[in-house]
């Protein structure tokens, strides 16, 4: 049975750090290396920032983001839940790291880093909420 930790933050940039620290603490307590903890921290920042910027257009002060950590024997599963319009970040094309400067568009790097840093990632829209789950092995 996985041990669960939950946090709810207002969907504002100023509170993203709190979500990152929350996940980092659970990751650290789970015995993850410093590097793995750092990667979890960055992943949460990227995901929460995307929700605030693209999901709520920086007007999410009355909205919230739930962060749920589940400690499993060999991995940590983190689900980030929000109530913005249905959006699957995994369905978007990856940006191209080989693109020349002139062709580079902003956007996409956050989720790209999450995919690189996490061992598993999946998305579902359920009960009118976006649910993105990322997993990091110990």
């Amino acid at each position, binding site marked *: 049975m996985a041990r669960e930790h939950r946090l709810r933050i207002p969907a504002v940039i100023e509170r*993203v750090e709190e979500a990152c620290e929350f996940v980092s603490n659970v990751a650290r307590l789970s015995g993850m290396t410093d590097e793995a903890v750092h990667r979890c921290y960055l992943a949460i*920042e990227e995901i929460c920032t995307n929700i605030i910027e693209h999901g709520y257009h920086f007007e999410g002060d009355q909205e919230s983001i739930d962060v749920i950590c589940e400690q499993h024997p060999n991995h940590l599963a983190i689900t980030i839940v929000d109530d913005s319009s249905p959006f699957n970040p995994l369905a978007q094309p990856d940006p191209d*790291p*080989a*693109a020349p*400067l002139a062709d580079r568009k902003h956007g996409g*790097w*956050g989720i*790209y*880093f999450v995919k690189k840093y996490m061992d598993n990632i999946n998305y579902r829209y359920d009960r009118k909420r976006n649910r993105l789950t990322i997993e990091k092995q110990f």
Partner: protein
Amino acid sequence: MVDVTVTELENVALVVVTGRIDSMTAGRFGVGLSGAIEKGFSHIVLDLAGVDYMSSAGLREIVNALKKVRREKGDLRIAQPSSRVFEVLEMAGLDTVVQIFETQAEALGSY
């Protein structure tokens, strides 16, 4: 928290950043970079030795600044990124677009 210090050298603006560049502080970081460019400097050295964390928000500001200076036939070069910051630059392929130096002196001397 992020701190951005700009030192105007003869033909180069040395932008020294300390702290963390994340979604909350990237704006201030970008303002620091833009400030140097708006003063007319098209040769920038961005010293990141004191930056222990950078997310994609920081990348965005670097790319914005890079595009601006290259339009003016200038450049932005990076000095002393930590291994974690370098990894972010590398994942985004910026290590093939931007010159990155191990020391500030090498970066300044490259102009």
